[in-house]
């Protein structure tokens, strides 16, 4: 069980114990005689459990989808949900003589008589609104509840109506609490059907300590464990609702936003575990797929999952021919002390004295449309003595201080003989075209324009030398400076064989496979 294990520091990743909780819950359900629950309810309860628990690894593409839904809620952090502080937990039921009333509320007397009278019609509802999650806002308060009705002859009035709900402030975002309310409604229904938990006055008293634990633990830790009796326990967790992550393309580069060592690799699914070592902020998705030997779409999904949890963020491929420009946010570097600290510690070269703010700021301001990274290096050699320019650019992109200018080729003249024009409509950047096709346009493009980028014609390059230019290895002159970009791994001739087997992966075009692996200056993009 999770209780006994020490919690790892934030951000925490689901422990192996999570899986066993799921099984435990299933056993709670299984104890209820299946015939007692109607089949639809049983399926609903089970499906609620399925959604709230992590799926078993390994992840198949069928289980995950692009562009999340609430199905992403599998691997939540244990932080409490943002802004959804519960102010009160109430239990309301329909008394046979007194009508709708609040039987218990924790803390006492939180819901005034007036408030309850106003909204009681939404708490103990007509049959049409039963079993639906209802959130009603009134008098600066928001009440979330799920009215339940159990019909049986043994009850006076032949039905038991009750509702266990939460009260929050009207302005708070309470979406994350809704699944919990629904789940509690399901649990209480089961308990009532199984052992008459609610209709029995004695056992109903146990609700008060349960509600107290709920309130305290959900507010403090975002999760709680409720022992109902010797054999039944309920586990609840507030899953933070995050916005859907963008689609990850092959030419995107994931980079860790926090320290890599904070992660417990073993608690991720197998795909993610396999690609984690390859995420270094310089390899793009297609390269990760080739080097980690994982299918491209799986890598995309795994990175998208990491993106959802804020573990990584996406930047563009770093090439020395890239052009960047500053955004207004770069001025924050002057005023914001925290940002300065973060920046200087990130971009300073290993083993050197800390870079000065002025140098870093000058370097960022030196990036402008029309200046490539190569130009920057040649102009600002003094400032770059203590600064690692690759990390400089990475930091700038991650924080939005600079942005990349992308080139979009557009073919304006009609020419049927040329390469398929479907990619030259202005909707696909050079990065994307090179990644997707790996090809080398034999005929020069007639006109190139870019919403964010350089205008240059792309000369005919032998494909794999361009692959070098676009990969991690820049060019000969910088090798002398001792940059560790060009390793044996990045040479295409070595990597060519396994890549070719994948067909569309990064690599030289089968038709134009030149043997020489050494790039010369003339093959690089003029700028």
């Amino acid at each position, binding site marked *: 069980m999770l209780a006994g294990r020490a919690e790892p520091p934030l951000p925490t990743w689901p422990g192996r114990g999570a899986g066993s909780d799921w099984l435990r819950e299933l056993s709670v359900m299984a104890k209820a005689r299946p015939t007692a629950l109607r089949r639809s309810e049983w399926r609903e309860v089970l499906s609620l459990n399925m959604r709230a628990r992590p799926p078993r690894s390994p992840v198949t593409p069928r289980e995950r989808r692009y562009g999340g839904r609430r199905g992403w809620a599998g691997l939540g952090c244990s932080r409490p949900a943002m802004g959804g502080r519960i102010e009160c937990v109430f239990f309301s039921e329909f008394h046979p003589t007194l009508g709708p009333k609040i039987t218990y509320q924790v803390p006492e007397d939180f819901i005034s008589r007036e408030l309850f009278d106003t909204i009681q019609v939404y708490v103990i509802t007509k049959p049409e609104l039963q079993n639906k999650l209802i959130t009603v806002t009134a008098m600066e308060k928001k009440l979330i509840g799920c009215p339940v009705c159990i019909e049986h002859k043994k009850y006076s009035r032949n039905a038991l109506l009750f509702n266990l709900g939460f009260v929050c402030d009207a302005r708070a975002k309470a979406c994350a609490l809704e699944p919990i309310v629904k789940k509690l409604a399901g649990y209480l229904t089961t308990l009532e059907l199984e052992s008459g938990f609610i209709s029995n006055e004695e056992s109903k008293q146990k609700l008060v300590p349960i509600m107290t634990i709920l309130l305290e633990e959900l507010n403090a830790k975002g999760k709680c464990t409720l022992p109902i009796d010797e054999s039944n326990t309920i586990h609840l967790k507030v899953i933070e609702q995050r916005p859907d992550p963008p689609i990850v393309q092959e030419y995107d580069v994931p980079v860790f936003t926090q320290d890599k060592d904070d992660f417990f690799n073993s608690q991720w699914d197998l795909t993610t575990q396999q690609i984690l070592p390859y995420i270094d902020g310089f390899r793009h998705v297609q390269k990760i797929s080739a080097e980690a030997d994982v299918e491209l779409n799986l890598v995309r999904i795994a990175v998208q999952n990491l993106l959802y949890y804020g573990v990584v963020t996406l930047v563009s491929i770093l090439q020395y021919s890239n052009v960047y420009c500053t955004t207004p946010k770069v*001025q924050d570097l002057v005023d914001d002390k925290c940002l300065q600290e973060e920046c200087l510690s990130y971009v300073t070269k290993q083993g050197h004295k800390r870079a000065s703010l002025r140098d870093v700021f000058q370097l960022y301001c030196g990036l402008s449309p029309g200046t490539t990274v190569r130009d920057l290096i040649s102009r600002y050699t003094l400032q770059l003595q203590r600064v690692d320019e690759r990390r400089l650019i990475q930091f700038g992109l991650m924080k939005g201080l600079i942005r990349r200018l992308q080139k979009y080729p*557009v073919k304006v003249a009609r020419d049927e003989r040329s390469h398929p024009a479907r990619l030259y409509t202005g909707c696909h950047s050079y990065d994307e075209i090179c990644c997707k096709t790996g090809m080398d346009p034999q005929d020069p493009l007639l006109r190139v324009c870019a919403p964010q980028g350089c205008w240059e014609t792309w000369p005919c390059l032998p494909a794999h030398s361009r692959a070098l230019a676009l990969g991690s290895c820049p060019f000969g002159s910088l090798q002398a400076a001792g940059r560790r970009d060009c390793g044996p791994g990045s040479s295409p001739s070595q990597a060519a064989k396994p890549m070719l087997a994948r067909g569309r992966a990064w690599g030289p075009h089968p038709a134009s496979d030149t043997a020489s692996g050494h790039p010369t200056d003339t093959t690089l993009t003029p700028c």
Partner: protein
Amino acid sequence: MCGKKFELKIDNVRFVGHPTLLQHALGQVSKTDPSPKREMPTMILFNVVFALRANADPSVISCLHNLSRRIAIVLQHEERRCQYLTREAKLILAIQDEVSAMAETTEGPQSPFHHILPKCKLARDLKETYDSLCTTGVVRLHINNWLEVSFCLPHKIHYVATNFIPPEAIERSLKSIRPYHALLLLNDEKSLLNELPLDCSPALVRVIKTTSAVKNLQQLAQDADLALLQVFQLAAHLVYWGKAIIIYPLCENNVYMLSPNASVCLYSPLADAFSCQFRGHNLPSMLAKFSLPVSLAEFKNPLAPPVQETQLIQMVIWMLQHRLLIQLHTYVCLMVPPQEEELRAQDEDMPFTARVGGRSLSTPNALSFGSPTSSDDMTLTSPSMDNSSAELIPGGDSPLNKRMTENLLASLLEHEREAILNVPAAQNPEDLRMFARLLHYFRGRHHLEEIMYNENMRRSQLLMLFDKFRSVLVVTSHEDPVISVFQSLLK
């Protein structure tokens, strides 16, 4: 719950409305009331409710609540005046009874709405509200053909490509516009004037007629003979309704570049519209010219016929209207070379802004720039007034000037002052004085044109100054965050 926002969420549907109480003074019949005998009203409470998806943005919810309130106010008024609501309600209920009676005779239930719509004006109004909200986002109703309800949903109106601009960003931007900005209408003047209702303010009409892309707001105020504050308000109104955006006035020295959100797709509807309007030119080729920042002066060709230049300006205006271009401005920041003990001193440093920003330049709102023609309670607290050139007597090394300069430089740290004084140009007292005077602009938040406007200086003077002091200044260029929201470049 009356008179307050009503919000209810059931599973995936969110209902938002504004319940309104109809209070009638019972038994009171006005003698001057020409209407026939009033019947006792039966309706006590009504509520115009919108049903949305549960995950709607909170600003959308509050906008729709606003609309519900407006409709409720109008209906309440009409009810009090001539019992409009009760009449319509009776009509609808009668038709519904008819239809349900019909359903028993004919086979199958029938929808009463098809029968209600032709007969009941209120139902048609509500249907029109729904249709307009779903399509254009602009609602204009005439309840009972008498009172008008107009409303716009900013989320539908303000969007660039596929991103919508949140209304708060627009409001923030509107609070920061300055007199040197210009108002650019998004459609042509004639169609805009046709859209205005008959009883619109004449000031608005004057503003629309006199505005132009090359005129800034101050000139516009003078030409239209209105107070600057009023022009600001009218401009904000036009911007809010999506009829105009704020730009920097067009001039030769403006540097434009393609917006990151611009779509350069060859087959987009924008490209077609461009080709229709400017025969013989196609949009991607034109956009290619702006791939890198280029100033309009570079397109000037004295040997070409002048019509080409006018056409270029029109194309640039067209591209600005369709949010394809952003304008880059030059920003300057003071950054002296660090001394050796810099690391220790950094902890005691206050941020530069706190030290130098004595005058609150950060958010001068529209009210702080008065107009010469207005005499209201607006204070002329233009920053240039504090130490305008009138105070510093030009020429000469007078002790007054020297003291002024010293005071201005006193707010800097010791090593910063030393670094500035070490610059060779600082030996020239004129240059040093100008530098000291402009010191508070060198935080990277004020662009060149703003300094030119505030201090009434020429571009060449400023550029020369920046060049002389380039060892302590860092110059960069990027878009103006105040107006870049209109290109959906947020944050």
